[in-house]
């Protein structure tokens, strides 16, 4: 079956800088595809090439098997990382303006309700809060009832509450079997929303798969962390991996039961002990050797 969207060996060079260096992937219909990576990894450049906004240096993007054209622009909903609307336009006017561009549209009342815009329909868009603004931009991206929806770092800069609200909106959209392309540098967001992820660094995809499969493939261990002063300098037998930092000791364990038994036998206090699974954050560190936000 033809994938909904396919990127083939996309390359973008800015003079000496290779922002994106040979990226390929395909996105089946109904999937939420996440593009992850730190700032500057090439996520936005990749997405903007797919969207037909940036011409690639080489490579191509196919939508339903054909190059990006008018049909794609009618079918795609796009929420850029930073979208400006013209000055002195009100929320309801912006919705109607964008609605007029498309042949097939969703009823505005439905979008207004879904994105909770009702309370500030007559407000100038310059005077919206961060969360309100993102909801309006999402509503605009949905105005043509898109087959494929692009969200480029949609929750960057939002407070935790607004971020959770936004995630709920995305969940609702996913229920309609829409295809989504999401870029983010929040691993938590990717884990929450994406069915499949590609991790980018320095213009390349360095890992790809479902979040669970990726974690399973790279990690067969969990992390036990304890206050450093509870743990003596030498443990017997010595664990395979132990890190000390910021007053904490982190022990990587392939067998939690055995490790805890061992700690108890050696008289280590388990007060304030935390056990957690490995996260995408850890995976990124493992794959690239540097921190995700760095």
């Amino acid at each position, binding site marked *: 079956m033809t994938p909904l969207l396919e990127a083939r060996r996309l390359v973008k060079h800015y003079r000496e800088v290779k922002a994106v260096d040979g990226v390929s992937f395909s996105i089946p219909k109904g999937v939420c595809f996440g593009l992850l990576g730190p700032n500057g990894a090439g996520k936005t450049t990749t997405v903007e090439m797919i969207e037909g906004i940036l011409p690639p240096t080489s490579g191509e993007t196919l939508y339903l098997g054909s190059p990006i054209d008018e049909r794609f622009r009618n079918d795609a909903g796009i929420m850029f990382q930073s979208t400006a*609307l013209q000055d002195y*336009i009100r929320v309801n006017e912006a919705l109607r*303006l964008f609605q007029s561009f498309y042949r097939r549209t969703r009823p505005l009342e439905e979008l207004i309700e879904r994105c909770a815009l009702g309370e500030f329909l007559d407000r100038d868009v310059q005077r919206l809060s961060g969360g309100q603004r993102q909801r309006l931009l999402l509503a605009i991206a949905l105005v043509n009832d898109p087959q494929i929806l692009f969200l480029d770092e949609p929750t960057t800069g939002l407070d935790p509450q607004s971020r959770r609200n936004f995630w709920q909106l995305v969940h609702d959209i996913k229920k309609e079997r829409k295809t989504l392309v999401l870029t983010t540098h929040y691993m938590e967001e990717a884990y929450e929303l994406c069915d499949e992820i590609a991790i980018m660094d320095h213009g390349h995809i360095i890992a790809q798969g479902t979040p669970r499969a990726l974690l399973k493939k790279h990690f067969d261990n969990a992390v036990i962390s304890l206050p450093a002063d509870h743990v003596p300098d030498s443990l017997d037998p010595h664990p395979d991996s132990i890190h000390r930092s910021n007053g904490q000791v982190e022990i990587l364990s392939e067998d939690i039961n055995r490790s805890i038994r061992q700690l108890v036998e050696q008289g280590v206090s388990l007060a304030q002990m935390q056990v957690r699974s490995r996260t995408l954050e850890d995976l990124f560190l493992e794959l690239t050797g540097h921190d995700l936000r760095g």
Partner: protein
Amino acid sequence: MGLGRFSTVLQARNREFLRDRMALSWNIVLPVLIVIGFAFAFTSDNKDIFKVGVHGQEDRNGGFLDTEHIQFIPVSDIPAAVTKVERHQLDMLMDLAEERYWINGGSAKGYVLEKLLAASELKLARQTVSGEEIRYVDWLIPGVLGMNIMFSSLFGVGYVIVRYRKNGVLKRLKATPLSAFEFLSAQVASRLWMITLVTILVYAGTNLMVGFRMNGSYVTLLLVLLAGTLSMISLGLIIAARLVNEEAANGLLNLISWPMMLLSGVWFSLEGSPEVVQHFALLLPLTHITTAARAVMIDGAGVLDIGLHLLVLMLMTVIFMTIGARSFRWE
């Protein structure tokens, strides 16, 4: 071309213009203030000197040309000088070759000069003309209207579209089925419509406050202003086509508009300036707007009289618009 898209973009742009109170008031208040300012500055006619145009051999003047406190100005074009007598720009005109002189029946200075001439040994035949005085403000109004159109068109299209490009408005529009042609024609139509409204307001407002001459047809004047506005908007489109930086756009727009304002005869006549300057001025749309509007308002010129100016403005519009639209990039 989708008429629906065109009209929603047009309306959105109109609203943006009308809601930007600061810019709007500048568009209306500034030209009115300029005109009122000049009207007051020139009400007390402080030309305490008599101006006499002289044509022909100056040696046979019977000593009249030695009279003090009279400025004698050599004249080559008799009909043009006669017009100046009609408008009180010359107090008297003497043609020494044909032994005649012209005087404006309604001019006090002309009366005094005529008495002086009669007292001298120079005997010339009397010719009278009539005509009301052309105040500086009458002469200035068409130029100020043209200048306002120029600034509003260049900045309203050039600067605004560059700002749209810089802050990502254009990028968002590019991601929709809206075509560049639909977008640009809506911008042009919106600006044309808004400038026409503002110009009518400014005209009415200044006329109410200082009252000026309008000897021609309003339809003809409107035609000049529409053709002029279109040519200026098209010039703005060239600036808007590629620039990404507002400051660069601002600089470039100032670089175009200020010399144009000074060299198009808005504030002072270019009659006495070097030929090079006069030729160069013909390349500027504002020269044609000002000259044609002045001809309509002061001389009552008809469409045919100013046809050449209209033609030049339309030609400029076609050229500028082609360049601007062809080189336009969303990003």
